[in-house]
């Protein structure tokens, strides 16, 4: 297996006046090609900071990120990033939003229109292709964002608590859909969540983060695939792993 992302001794500080807020300190992690890695941690443990650095949106104070062997300097279309907040362009319809990454990549109009329509159907928004983001519910906007990110054609995907604000049914539907997409495409996915069950259901590997991005536990998840969200939750191994992860999180809080 080859490493897609290598994170080496990453530190990120935010300077304000004479005080620096340290969000991440000496963080190292390697993500293998084609794996689904979930990063589990409580709010404020530097998960989002880490993803911002991985995506290239922000620059580390110290350390570096290697993307396919070369240090990476800024955002690239090779890495897709589904941020926590919605960043659909409010003046574009869903259709035109999903077309946008392909527009920037310079793909011809008929081709990107067809591709976007298909992606929109995949996330179940076919009837709302002509709606503007403000006319959609939060969950629908999330699905539109997902479609837009997939339109990027990136093979490495970063997701920051993408399903956090959705209702339980929709969340498990989208989880199932995400797993299906991942199995079909062999993408590499780094999925950040604060939900222990979600981390277990999705990941090949769960990395539990403590304060300042300290790695508390790096656990292989040997649950059989394909994993059905409803059945996997009652698997004895799932229950066992669940307890391990929760213990690790609690220990992190005590430190």
């Amino acid at each position, binding site marked *: 297996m080859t490493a897609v992302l290598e994170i080496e001794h990453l530190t990120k500080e935010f300077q304000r006046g004479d005080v620096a807020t340290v969000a991440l300190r000496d963080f190292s992690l390697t993500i293998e090609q084609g794996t689904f890695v979930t990063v589990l941690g409580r709010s404020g443990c530097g998960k989002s900071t880490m993803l911002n650095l991985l*995506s290239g*949106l922000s620059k580390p104070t110290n350390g570096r990120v290697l993307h396919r062997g070369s240090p990476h300097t*800024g*955002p*690239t*279309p090779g*890495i*897709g*990033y589904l*941020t926590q*907040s919605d*960043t659909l*362009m*409010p*003046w*574009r*319809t869903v259709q035109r939003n999903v077309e*946008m*990454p392909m*527009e*920037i*990549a310079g793909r011809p109009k008929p081709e990107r229109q067809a*591709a976007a329509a*298909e*992606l929109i*159907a*995949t*996330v*179940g*928004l*076919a*009837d*709302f292709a002509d709606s*503007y983001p*403000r*006319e*959609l*519910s939060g*969950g*629908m906007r999330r*699905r539109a964002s997902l479609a837009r990110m*997939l339109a*990027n*054609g*990136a*093979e490495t995907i970063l997701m920051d608590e993408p399903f956090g604000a959705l209702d339980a*049914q*929709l969340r498990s*539907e*989208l989880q199932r*859909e995400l797993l*299906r*997409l991942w199995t*079909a*495409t*062999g*993408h590499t996915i780094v999925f950040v969540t604060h939900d222990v069950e979600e981390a277990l259901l999705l990941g090949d590997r769960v990395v539990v983060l403590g304060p300042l991005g300290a790695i508390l536990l790096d656990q292989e998840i040997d649950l059989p695939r394909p994993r059905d969200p409803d059945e996997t939750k009652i698997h004895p191994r799932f229950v066992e792993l669940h307890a391990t992860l929760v213990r690790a999180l609690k220990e992190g809080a005590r430190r």
Partner: protein
Amino acid sequence: MSGQAETRAAPVQVSASGPVKEARRRSWWGKHGRTTTVWSLRVAALLAFLVLWQLAGNVVANPMFVSSPVAVWEQLWAWVTDGTLSTHTWITIQEVALGYVIGVLTGALAGFALASVRLIYDVFEPFMMALYSIPKVALAPLFIVWFGIGIDMKVILAAVSVFFLVFLNTAAGVRDVDRGLIDAVRLMGGSTRDIALKVVLPASMSGLMTGLKVSIPYALIGAVIGELVASNRGLGYLINDAAAQFNTAGVFAAVVVLTALAMVLNAVVGAIASRANRWKPLDA
């Protein structure tokens, strides 16, 4: 891109939950009822005002001061028939339109360009605010020295008034652009040019539209002040001339024409704004 093709190979539909769109035919009254009510009430209010105005002439000591709708109408008609109105109105229209367009174009361009570069904006912002604070009327004598008393001076006075309002609103719009949207385009591999054209430009549109709307009266003020200060043509001159002859009906008649002009401009800008703001929420 190969991953892309595979992604689309097996689309599975996620069940659509949430609102659904259905066809609903509405009756004529359902579609236009509110508009009809609003317009009827507007006409009624206007008529009531005109009647009260007409009656006021019988109450006040000297009817000359308040004039009356009938007298204003007669004056207007006299000016229309002898061609006075069209000559002077045309002059003012030219001044207002040219001044407005020049002010809007330069203001929007300057606002977009300056606000896009943080350093430049930080350097020039206090100067712009200082210049904005100058009452433009105070510049009229200077403009007469520079450009004479012809139409140029009024156009420039109008343009300067419009420029600052459009500039400030556009700049505010550019600076208010959601950081997340810019990051989203960077993540798509977009260049600085993509960010400027696909994010900053559309996002600053609402600021620009506000600028367009609030600056309409200032275009009129600029042109009319210019005419009042020094001119022998235009509606401002007509007002001055009528007032000098104690012809209040004449003053009111010229003001009515100015009002009509402002409303036409408002309607044009409103149409542009609603086209640009289609994406805004339905009931805002």
